[in-house]
Structures are given as structure tokens and as C-alpha cells.
């Protein structure tokens, strides 16, 4: 039963990928090529999906439990982790952020430092 429901949901997801054009890697690559053959379509896919999921999740998560199973399996980790960020986990200050942004060890590291600095402010 769960197999069939998941099959149907996978078909819906896959049909969404085909209809949106995202089944073609060329369209994804062209989204990333702002200074070349830019195709902004992917932003519309993400936008549509996020708006629907943003509203839908809020409605669904009012329930105590999903239709099958006892609990919702939501990711519980809230902190930025080494695996996600690739930088040494340490407490960051505005100075650290400025330094990493200036040196730009990597765009990731600057972003993560910015996020840490923002979340560490009172």
C-alpha cells in the first residue's frame, strides 16, 4: 500500500520535473549561466514548489501524526555543522566574519561565518 502511494507521489514529482523542464540538465545549467545563455526557469520551479510546500507543510503539521506512522520525521539538527559548512566549528565574531569575507577562503566559509555571526548577536 505504502509502495503504491509512494509510487503515485513519485510519479507526481517526476511529472513536475518533466513539465517544468528540469528533466533536461541543459535547462538547469543554463539557469546557472547568468552571463551566457541564461534561462531563469529554475527560479520559477523553486518558487512554485516552495510556496506550495510552505503553505502545505503548515496545514499538514497541525496534525498530531501522518496518516501512516506515529510521528513526523523532521530533521532535528538546528546548528550549522562541519559537514554542512566545511569550516572549523568555532564561535564566530564580527571580526572573524570580516576576516573571512576579506580573505574569502571560500564563498561557503564567508556565508557560514555571516550566518553564525547573525545568529550569535543578542
Amino acid at each position, binding site marked *: 500500500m*505504502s*509502495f503504491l*502511494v*509512494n*509510487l503515485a*507521489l*513519485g510519479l*507526481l*514529482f*517526476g*511529472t*513536475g*520535473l*518533466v*513539465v*517544468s523542464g528540469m*528533466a*533536461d*540538465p541543459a*535547462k538547469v545549467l*543554463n539557469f*546557472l*549561466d*547568468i*552571463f*551566457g545563455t541564461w*534561462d*531563469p*526557469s529554475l527560479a*520559477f*520551479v*523553486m*518558487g*512554485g*514548489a*516552495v*510556496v*506550495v*510546500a510552505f503553505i*502545505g*507543510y503548515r496545514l*499538514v503539521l497541525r*496534525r498530531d501524526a*501522518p496518516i*501512516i506512522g506515529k*510521528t513526523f*520525521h*523532521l*530533521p532535528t*539538527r*538546528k546548528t*550549522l555543522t562541519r*559537514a*554542512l*559548512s566545511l569550516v572549523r566549528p568555532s564561535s564566530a565574531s564580527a571580526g572573524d566574519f570580516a576576516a573571512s569575507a576579506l580573505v574569502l577562503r571560500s*564563498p*561557503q566559509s564567508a*556565508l*557560514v561565518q555571516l*550566518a553564525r555571526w547573525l545568529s550569535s548577536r543578542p
Partner: protein
Amino acid sequence: MTEFTPWASLIGGTMIGLSAVLLMLWEGRIAGISGIAGRLLPPYRDGAFLSRLGFIGGIVAAPLLISLASGTPVSQTISSNVPLMVVAGLLVGFGSVWGNGCTSGHGVCGLSRLSARSMVATATFMATAFITVFVVRHVIGG
């Protein structure tokens, strides 16, 4: 060149979002494709293997069924260099597991849940991808 398709992409996007919402309603799981696909491999801890197989099977079957029904194949532009595609596939798999998610898990589900981790992850992999494509197409390839 690919054609800019705002309406088709918006409609397809809402189907993807709806699928993610219904998966949460049915069995309370995040529709992260890399996570679902990755957990088709052992270790099997939670007895959800058949569910995952169904979801991935549906995604794989969708373009095949659409091709059959419409009589025209779904357009896909990929490299004919097989070793390059294998390396690219391995990198996609490695990166999405290391980053704990991909465009669907972090990008769609995580952003919808306003997860700070997913916002950082999405901003990071998008920024890295923009830079990579710029370097490959305009610096090296230019």
C-alpha cells in the same frame, strides 16, 4: 539555448511542492531525493525501503510514461562522454550526502520549513554552482 518557460516551470514546481506536502501527510517524511535514493542502499534501519523504492521508481517512470503517452521523447541534453558522466554522477552523490541534502531536500523542503541550515546549504550550493558554471563556460571554455 533553452527556451524560458515561466508558466510550465511554475506549474511543474507546484506539482513538485504538492508531492512533497503529500509525502509529509502520508508518512511524515521530507521529499529529499538524494536522501531517499541514498537510503535505498544499506544499512536498512527503519523498514521504509519499499516506500523509498516506490517514490524513486515513480520519478524514474514519469518521463518514460509521458514519452509513451505523448509519442515524443522527453528532451534531455547530456554529454555522450560516459566516463565524464560517471564521475559527474559520483560527485553529485558525494556532494549531496556530504551537504545533507540537495535541491529538493534543502532547496524545496528546507526553505519551506524556514530551516536556517537549509538556507545556508541552498545559498552555498547555488553560489558554488554559479561560480563553477561561470569558470567552466566563460573562463576555461571562453
